[in-house]
């Protein structure tokens, strides 16, 4: 299957098809098509460059949700030298939408808290499409407190379409679980890095998203509500999501401009799914650099900086 499956990627798909048919013609007829194929491949490279360097916000949202995009587990298996998953919130159950565990990356010990969407129908259902329940947030908190006890820094990987809006989730205190994490994460005595690898939808993302540094892959979105949700409410029309993405300014670049994200992580041309290993390398290096910097700061100072960082967020006038 082609890697170019999104609507706006149709021109690339066409060139790819031409290359394929040219090649099969070559095989069938014995004609030398090398030059023609080469020309088309050059055209593809150029088209890709033009297309991906001028993406609209809505197109980036689609890349953030791309079904082939690497998920947390894809990164964890590539970047860690040691990984041991830890399960359960000790109150109610284990939430497979949240993958947590201890890890070592290049001699750096870490607690990884991550959201996992699942690939394929069975896995997606098991992972609840990356929509965590209160148990997920409580498991995350339990393990962040464990990390704090042993002075192990915390890495969170954010990729969720939102916290799960179910009956049981409400009954077991979805709001309380998220609120408690915001409260506890803001004063956790170890460094915390938050990295958006796909979608960062609202409270569901923020529930594991408080920390010292926030990094976003280039083609990710992070906002208070999904573009569709915003369009439904404010434009009264879900199909106006592209406009809503622009109005809310939801991309990594926007977040950097707002002063909410610290760093944008570059992606292979066309998205992280075009090259899993290259994307994992980018992630790994960013993690190592960020913790190296944060580990130098005294814990009290680090917490004070963290609170001050959030205190500056927002825009208002003083009269």
């Amino acid at each position, binding site marked *: 299957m082609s890697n170019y499956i999104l609507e706006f990627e149709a021109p690339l798909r066409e060139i790819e098809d031409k290359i394929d048919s040219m090649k099969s013609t070559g095989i069938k007829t014995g004609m030398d098509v090398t030059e023609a194929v080469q020309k088309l491949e050059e055209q593809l490279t150029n088209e890709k460059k033009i297309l991906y360097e001028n993406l609209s916000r809505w197109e980036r949202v689609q890349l953030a949700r791309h079904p082939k995009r690497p998920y947390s587990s894809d990164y964890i298996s590539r970047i860690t030298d040691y990984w041991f998953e830890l399960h359960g919130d000790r109150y109610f159950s284990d939430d497979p939408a949240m993958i947590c565990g201890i890890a070592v990356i290049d001699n750096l010990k870490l607690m990884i808290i991550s959201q996992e969407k699942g690939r394929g129908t069975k896995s997606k259902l098991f992972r609840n499409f990356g929509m965590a329940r209160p148990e997920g947030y409580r498991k995350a908190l339990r393990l962040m407190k464990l990390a704090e006890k042993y002075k192990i820094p915390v890495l969170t990987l954010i990729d969720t379409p939102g916290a799960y809006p179910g009956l049981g989730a409400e009954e077991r205190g979805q709001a309380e679980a998220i609120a408690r994490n915001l409260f506890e994460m803001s004063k956790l005595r170890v460094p915390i890095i938050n990295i958006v690898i796909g979608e960062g939808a609202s409270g569901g993302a923020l529930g594991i998203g408080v920390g010292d540094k926030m990094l976003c892959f280039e083609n990710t979105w992070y906002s208070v509500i999904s573009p569709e949700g915003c369009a439904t409410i404010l434009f009264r029309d879900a199909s106006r999501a592209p406009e809503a993405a622009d109005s809310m300014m939801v991309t990594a670049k926007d977040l950097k401009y707002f002063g909410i994200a610290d760093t944008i992580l570059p992606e292979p041309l066309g998205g992280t799914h075009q090259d899993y290993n290259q994307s994992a390398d980018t992630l790994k290096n960013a993690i190592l650099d960020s913790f190296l910097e944060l580990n130098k700061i005294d814990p009290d100072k680090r917490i004070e900086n963290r609170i001050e960082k959030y205190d500056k967020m927002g825009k208002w006038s*003083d009269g």
Partner: protein
Amino acid sequence: MAEWFRRKSEKIKTLDKREIAEGMWLKCPQCQEVVYRKMLEENHFICTNCTHHFRITSDNYIQLLMDDGKFEEIAANVQSVDPLNFKATKNYTDQIKTAQEKTGNKDAVKTLIGNINGIKAVLAIMDFSFIGGSMGSVVGEKISQAIDRAAKDHLPLVIITASGGARMQEGAYSLMQMAKISSKLARYSDLGGLYITVITDPTTGGTTASFAMLGDIILAEPNALIGFAGARVIKQTIGEELPEGFQRSEFLLEKGFIDHIVGRKELKTTLSDLFSFFNFGASEKEELSEVDDNE
């Protein structure tokens, strides 16, 4: 703007936000009884027939709680600047202006310091009538300054919530207000501060998922709608009817997320009693002398 609070389900009644209409006579949205406005006012907008708590404004709460209605406002001049230059069916700037004219307030929260039964406290009171009590940069900054003041003067803090959640016209900025307020509360708590939440109808979304659920003591008015996700979304997700009384104060009390349901008439005494119990304010001396008497 308030469309997302309005439930389509027959089972879950959502009251019109302007339920305290003009005129001499008002109809109670719960028991449908027509009540004389003046009597309702004297009864703190609690239905004289069925005890339904009408939604009231921050000014009403000030009259209800503050000694002699007196207070000093905190961060009085902070107001919105439309950081995203947001345009939808209505422009955000116009929306703010209309809300300011309608309510006479700068934004969806009033922050202040004053006495409750002789005990000094810091209060943040949200107003659902101001763009659905939504939380943007201004709400975040005002509450943040209020918390700082409570921390500095070692005063108890009360936040009365009434909010549909984050204000999406401010995009990610509005989301980050949840983190901003929660982190300030964490610091205040570590300094020994006492934080009491009073949840009123309705409190949902990001407001519930941050400071509403972080009180050392969480109080709620009777029958207030309190939740994270909207009832309509949940119904779509699970594909079945929601139980009676779902996401109401009594439901949350039963599930263990609220300490006590307190009627509006008992709110002032409840707050000052709690302040005293946790050693804030005037009664510290009295307690000591009581101990002396016993000895």
